[in-house]
């Protein structure tokens, strides 16, 4: 008998999705209720995850097609927290656009379910199932503001390109299956020792598909358009949560089935990493829309995360996970600020709208200052430590070129972050923005800013949690 307790979080969240859907359809005007209940469901799922799986070092289920280990539990918890925060700070934004409907929380929950399946996957088919579940929910979310042309365009673009990448991914999976005779990661890992060309193709296809999902250069083209067009809260969701899941899958693929083929993929990852870091930094300079800018900056940040993965060491994987966790916090803070730029039911998204913010909104500007310097990686803020751990791992493997290119691109990236700070602090002020924000929005901004600011006092805790993750 399988120990079903280990997948209890997934089971619970599936049941809640069905229940909420039924409830929402049968009961009139139940949006508020669905929202609250789904928050509640996420919380309970998180608690179950912590209770049931956090102490598990490694267990497999269902013919070894699902794996529960310290990485999967940690990533699930981060995913759930991310989803929770996105939901709580969405409501006022959605109400403004009159799209405060029951579908929104249900879609978010389903994509979270997909991600949780992805994170735990130890089998090509389970992985693909999770991936498609989360992607389909995300397509709909991207178009969620359906009365706006840009939102529909974003959804369509995302759908077409993402479907293409899923196709590539699936093709790669079939090639790998053909060579190893199994879809199970562990068995593939034992079977794949040869250096056959076609197998390399399979790996490349899979990596391309995954690179698309995390928007690494050169598979990033969709990101700026989709980020700009989607409703802001959905963009927030895009920049945080699916990246965590995709990163976990990336780690799993590289270090379980493909571990023996490290010579084949290491160069690819290094290339993806360098290209993302440099391109993300350079392309963001010319942007005028904050959401587009965030898209490019997230491309750059993914580059740093990949740099950690390229090291082929446990240190590197841990540093990537630390990086993405800190990045999630910084992103949450940045978007909370963005959602506060509201004046008479209209949200502002251009960098120019931040002009002179420090005169009218000193506290908000101070938070932005901290967040932006942290994103630029200036000590003693959290963003510096994230980069520091990554480069520590990279330099352990004597990959000097990667480290130096990465650090130089932080200088370029610093330029566009400084440009925003300049606009906030040095330029002429504009009209005041509204200050009656929801409590949750203020809460998430305050907490995340304090975390970023004071991370340097207790840096060991995060490392301690992450250091339990030993994949290799």
């Amino acid at each position, binding site marked *: 008998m399988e120990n079903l307790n280990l997948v209890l979080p997934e089971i619970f969240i599936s049941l809640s999705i069905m229940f909420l859907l039924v409830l929402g359809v049968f009961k009139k005007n139940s949006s508020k209720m669905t929202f609250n209940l789904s928050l509640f469901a996420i919380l309970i799922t998180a608690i179950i995850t912590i209770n049931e799986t956090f102490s598990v070092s490694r267990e497999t289920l269902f013919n070894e097609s699902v794996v529960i280990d310290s990485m999967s539990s940690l990533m699930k918890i981060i995913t759930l927290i991310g989803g929770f925060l996105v939901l709580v700070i969405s409501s006022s934004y959605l109400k403004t656009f009159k799209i405060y409907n029951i579908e929104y929380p249900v879609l978010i929950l389903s994509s979270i379910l997909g991600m949780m399946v992805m994170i735990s996957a130890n089998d090509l088919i389970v992985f693909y199932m999770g991936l498609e579940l989360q992607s389909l929910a995300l397509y709909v979310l991207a178009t969620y503001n359906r009365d706006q042309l840009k939102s529909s365009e974003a959804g369509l673009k995302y759908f077409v390109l993402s479907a293409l990448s899923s196709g590539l991914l699936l093709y790669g999976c079939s090639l790998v299956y053909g060579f190893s005779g199994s879809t199970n990661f562990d068995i593939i890992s034992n079977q794949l020792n040869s250096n056959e060309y076609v197998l390399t193709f399979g790996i490349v296809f899979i990596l391309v598909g995954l690179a698309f999902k995390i928007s690494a250069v050169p598979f990033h083209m969709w990101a700026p358009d989709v980020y700009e067009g989607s409703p802001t809260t959905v963009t927030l969701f895009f920049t945080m949560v699916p990246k965590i899941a995709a990163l976990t899958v990336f780690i799993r693929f590289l270090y379980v089935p493909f571990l023996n083929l490290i010579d084949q993929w290491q160069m690819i990852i290094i290339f993806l990493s360098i290209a993302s870091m440099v391109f993300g930094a350079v392309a963001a300079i010319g942007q005028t829309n904050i959401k587009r800018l965030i898209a490019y900056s997230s491309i750059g940040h993914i580059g740093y995360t990949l740099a950690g993965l390229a090291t082929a060491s446990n240190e590197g994987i841990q540093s990537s996970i630390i990086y993405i966790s800190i990045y999630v916090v910084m992103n949450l803070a940045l978007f909370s600020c963005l959602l506060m730029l509201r004046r008479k039911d209209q949200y502002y998204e251009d960098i120019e709208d931040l002009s002179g913010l420090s005169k009218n909104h000193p506290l908000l500007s101070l938070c932005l200052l901290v967040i932006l310097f942290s994103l630029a990686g200036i000590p003693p803020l959290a963003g510096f430590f994230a980069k*520091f751990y990554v480069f*520590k791992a990279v330099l352990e493997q004597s990959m000097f070129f990667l480290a130096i290119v990465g650090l130089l691109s932080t*200088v370029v990236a610093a330029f566009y972050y400084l440009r925003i700070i*300049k606009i906030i602090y040095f330029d002429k002020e504009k009209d005041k923005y509204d200050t009656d924000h929801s409590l949750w929005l203020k809460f998430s901004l305050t907490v995340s800013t304090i975390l970023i600011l004071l991370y340097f006092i207790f840096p*060991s805790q995060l490392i*301690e949690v992450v250091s339990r993750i030993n994949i290799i």
Partner: protein
Amino acid sequence: MNFPILSSLILLPTVGALFLFFTKDKEGNNSTAKYVALFTTIVNFLISIYLWISFDQSTSNFQFVEDRTWIEGFINYKVGVDGISILFIILTTFITPLCIISVNNSVKNRLRDFLIAILIMESFMIGVFCALDLVVFYLFFEAGLIPMFLIIGIWGGPKRVYSAFKFFLYTLLGSVLMLVAIISIYWISGTTDVIQLYELGIDAKYQNLLWLAFFSSFAVKTPMWPVHTWLPDAHVEAPTAGSVLLAAILLKMAGYGFIRFSLGLFPVASEVFTPLIYTLSVIAIIFTSFIALMQEDMKKLIAYSSVAHMGFVTLGIFTLQQQGIEGSIIQMISHGLVSAALFLCVGVVYDRMHSRMINSYGGIVTIIPKYSILFMLFTLAALGLPGTSGFIGEFLILMGAFKDNFLVAVIASLGVILGAAYMLWLYKRVVFGKLVNEDLKKMFDLNRSEYLILSCLAVPTLFFGFYPDPLINTIEVSVTDLINMHNTNIASK
């Protein structure tokens, strides 16, 4: 474990800044904020004086060391002082209160924020001088960019955005390579603790590259020719207090870094690259002196003179002679006092006339005599007249240089003459001559706070000029030990 005196030195200004942050910002009346900031920095100064008094001058060991685990099994938060660093800490705590007094006249808007930035800056600067772990050092070294960027950018002159960006990006670009080097040192030696690294030594085959990485950071910060171009821009645009901090303390971080890290950690590479430093220093001394001669803008002139003076400092450090290094340290302290005073002097007339151009002044000696006397004192100190602290530093550096390399010393000595030329010419054009500009007649002489600041700076300049013993006694043992350690390292390689 005794009372953590160094950590309290570092933290106290930040606590003061927090206190200011939570007080209400009253429009127009900010005297409370100023008194809070002043009080904090003066207490800090008194603590640092206490530190100096209880400092044991007979040993080169690090004193008041605090060692706490910070990142488990990787970095310790380790601070401590020896004879070299203690003087810089006192310089920092001495200059900051003067900056805060000086804001009266120059900073008009958002005074409270300005004071917060200055206080936080002070924390970081003290941190740089006490850090005994490379990562902790880097943290403080880089963190200082944030408040300085804001000080230049928010309260600066018309071209402030350009200058702030240039300052920030130049320094950051230099520093990232140092970060690579620091992490590499961790993987080579297994620690980033400076004291342990002094004992272990770093394998000679890595030293050259590591030295260059550190050099890239310190050269920008010093600033050495040809990466000095950010300094004139930053100085010209920064508000007076910002220029003072920049010239008096920020530039000294690099000189201190050269002594503590480049010499201490990489003795072999330091020998290898001495010719490079000599060349760049001599170019800096001669070339920027000529540039200074041609300046129309007073602040720019003083900025270029800073580059030239820092050229002497780097020259002195890499003579690897007792006199050279001691001279460099005293020159840095003296330059800290004198350049701060000169920027304040420019600030005084700028606040009255809103012009930094030399040709808009002339003949002010009859209108503001007190100012003219103090200005003359600092001009003479800047050109190294015997009896001022500037003389001791330059003299010792040249003595060290003559011991090591005759040609370099001769060329550098020419720089002293050029220094006298541009400083005296500046003074002549501003203070003497015919009174052409009628508006100048409306100028009033130094007010109380300006008088206080400038005399506070004049006293140590003269005192240490006549009696440098307290400084030399403090640094002597540490410098001797540094050179001994260097020589044994070279001999064993």
